[in-house]
């Protein structure tokens, strides 16, 4: 198209449709990845591409050369080939567009604007319950804007302004639709419509449609888990009903109570239906009473959603001070555990563990205040998203891990875990390696000490008394569970003796004893 052109020729119109298909096809994976509404089934891009593909195929078979004939053809082909909710809406847009073009044999800015408004109107009408923050919002923003654009502008400028408006509206979609905001995405259908407008501009500019090939691996992280509610209805059902006196209106009303996302449109004696439902057989029976039923597609959205959720797994990497703890951490749901003995793990070891888990994002549990800096360092070095949950002790780590819910979003999980580890009381018993003093007492080398809340609070000559006194300090009337993890060096006979000492003092309580296998502390205590 020449730069100062003011009218779209039939030839250019065909080019625009072709370009729309090409751009959608190239960007469909990107669009798919944003698809969280109405159901996160990851197929909006594919559906819109298939819908445009039907139009392109129709054009290649039909020698029609008038603008109004071409727009009719595109509309009908789109309706016949429409896939999914967004495909149906798009097809209805073209239907309305074609109706706007009915009496025109020229497509200039003023006609295009008027037809665009008709298309938008039709798109809204085709949906039983229009929702804002979707492709409809983007269409509507443009339909409002075209009024303000002077018909004296060049097509080039006209499409540039349209695209800017659409882009702005698309960025607003998360503000209008909470599902999008929670998942951290813009609307997929709106994005697809943007691809089409981008294609139109490229034709007006006389350039080849410029597309960025984006595949799933280079996509921004979408928090699918934030939209993991079961789809409201399980099946996405698309079909035709053909008959002499079929009416989209009548079929639409008879199906309205059987599901949602209902889009119905008519092409002569055929009615095209898209519905989300739990009762596909009922929908078929009901529809078949109006005419001949032909199935286009029936998708199990629950299964599609499950497959998508698997892609959005959150991995957990935990640091453990001993073999016993490592087993407990694995059993409690960690995907990888880094066990250390004498020296704390290096940043490199943490990185290796995080990289080894196949997932979208990692939550890293340092489980030790000394390891926290390395964990934070590691989190900055991997391209994968790593969140460090600042657990200071392994007891905290275990409590946090138990509250992890794979069905929740990353942010919701971090919140849950923080709540849960902050409730646990952590303590430990060890032998002093050097003399030191606390405000209350001084500690000699080889004295047994009890640490609680990061402070030395107990001193004793023997291991059993140190543990007993520590428990006395830690256990409150509200506490339910007392977990004691024994270290590597505690002898079996000594342990039996200490267990009975503790049992005799806390006969009312169930004390849980576990093997932790840690090196420096004889006992690690967790109370909640």
């Amino acid at each position, binding site marked *: 198209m020449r730069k100062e052109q003011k009218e779209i020729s039939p030839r250019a119109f065909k080019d625009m449709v072709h370009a729309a298909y090409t751009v959608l096809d190239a960007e469909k994976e990107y669009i798919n990845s944003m698809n969280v509404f109405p159901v996160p089934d990851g197929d909006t891009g594919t559906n819109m591409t298939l819908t445009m593909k039907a139009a392109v195929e129709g054009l290649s078979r039909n020698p029609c050369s008038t603008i109004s004939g071409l727009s009719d053809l595109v509309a009908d082909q789109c309706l016949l080939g429409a896939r999914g909710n967004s495909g149906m809406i798009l097809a209805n847009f073209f239907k309305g567009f074609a109706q706007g073009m009915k009496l025109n044999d020229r497509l200039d800015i003023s006609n295009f604007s008027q037809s665009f408004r008709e298309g938008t109107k039709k798109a809204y009408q085709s949906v039983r319950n229009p929702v804002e923050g979707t492709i409809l919002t983007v269409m509507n923003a443009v339909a409002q804007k075209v009024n303000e654009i002077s018909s004296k502008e060049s097509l080039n400028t006209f499409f540039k302004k349209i695209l800017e408006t659409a882009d702005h509206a698309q960025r607003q979609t998360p503000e209008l639709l909470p599902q999008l905001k929670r998942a951290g995405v813009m609307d997929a259908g709106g994005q697809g419509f943007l691809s089409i407008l981008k294609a139109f501009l490229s034709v007006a500019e006389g350039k080849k449609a410029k597309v960025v090939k984006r595949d799933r691996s280079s996509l921004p992280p979408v928090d699918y888990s934030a939209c993991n509610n079961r789809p409201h209805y399980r099946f996405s059902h698309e079909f035709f009903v053909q008959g002499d006196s079929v009416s989209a209106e009548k079929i639409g009303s008879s199906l309205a109570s059987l599901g949602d996302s209902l889009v119905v449109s008519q092409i002569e004696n055929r009615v095209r239906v898209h519905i989300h439902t739990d009762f596909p057989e009922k929908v078929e029976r009901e529809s078949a009473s109006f005419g001949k039923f032909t199935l286009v597609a029936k998708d199990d959205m629950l299964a599609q959603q499950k497959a998508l959720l698997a892609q959005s797994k959150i991995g957990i990497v935990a640091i453990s001070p001993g073999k016993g703890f490592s087993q407990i951490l694995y059993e*409690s749901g960690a995907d990888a555990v880094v066990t250390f003995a004498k020296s704390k793990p290096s940043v490199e070891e943490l990185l290796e563990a995080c990289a080894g888990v196949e997932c979208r994002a990692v939550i890293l549990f340092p489980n030790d205040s000394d390891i926290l800096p390395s964990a934070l360092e590691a989190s900055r070095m991997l391209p994968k998203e790593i969140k460090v949950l600042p657990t200071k002790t392994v007891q905290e780590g275990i409590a946090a891990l*138990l509250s992890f819910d794979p069905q929740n979003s990353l942010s919701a999980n971090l919140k849950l875990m923080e709540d849960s580890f902050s409730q646990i009381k952590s303590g430990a018993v060890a032998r002093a390696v050097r003399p030191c003093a606390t405000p209350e007492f001084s500690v000699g080398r080889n004295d047994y000490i009890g640490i609680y809340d990061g402070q030395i609070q107990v001193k004793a000559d023997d291991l059993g008394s140190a543990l007993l006194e520590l428990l006395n300090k830690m256990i409150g009337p509200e506490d*339910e569970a007392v977990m004691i993890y024994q270290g590597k060096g505690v002898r079996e006979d000594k342990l039996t003796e200490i267990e009975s000492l503790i049992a005799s003092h806390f006969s009312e309580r169930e004390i*849980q004893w*576990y093997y932790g296998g840690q090196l420096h502390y004889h006992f690690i205590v967790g109370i909640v």
Partner: protein
Amino acid sequence: MSKIKIMVDSISTIPWETAEDLGIELVPYYVNFEGESIREDPSFDLKVFYKKLRQAKDWPGTSHPAPQDIEEKFRRLSQETDEIIYLMIPSQLTETYNIAHQLREKFKSIRIELCDVGSILGKLGLVALEACRLAEAGKTVDEILEQIYSISKRSRVFITLETLKYLARTGRISKATALLGTTLSIKPIITAQEGVLVPAGKTLTHNQAINWILKKIKSDLEKFKARKIKCFVNDVDNRTISDLVTTRLKENFQCEEIWQVEMSPLIATATGPGTWSVSYLIVE
């Protein structure tokens, strides 16, 4: 037109006297204990059963309703009504569905709808009570069935166990799941989802488990933009916790109905002593 009759498995924990008042037909299950097959019925003494259970050397087994029990009910109800809705335990868990399906063939003159809402305990009870109310209000079978599915979408059951070992023995939860936290003595929370028992959460204490469930209810209320719930609190010989849970529910939510009922012997046997559960329905 005759009134629609509602039949429901006894694992719904609807008390026998309530069932009788409302005209709900409860279908009993069996517990096989010390060489005897005991039928759940109003005379079943749970206290004695729990006591025996704690002392038992061999853990009892359970079995689905006897075909003759179901047949007898179909036969008797067919004298009173042309339409029966039988709400039952998920078909993944027992043979009940198949048995009833075969028996239904013998009663071709009446309509018998077998309805598996994929759930157990109070959740099944809540659905059955709603179904009964709809029948009372003169709704048709089709209308009730449709409502039942939307009601069951608004309800949940969460069961807190002392341990997974009893349930693992029944083979009704996967081995891998049963191994979760075998070292650590945790209180697993499970739920029935699409008829299958799956782990929902892990907590260290009963208090944490209660808070966990309260959070779920809160988020469901937000999700459905609702304010009220109806609920069941079930326990296996754990009145203390059941009282505590009931109090916490009343403190935190507007409970339109709250049923505090002991667990059916079948579930008690399958899940072990100390188990308790909360089922709730988000009221529209």
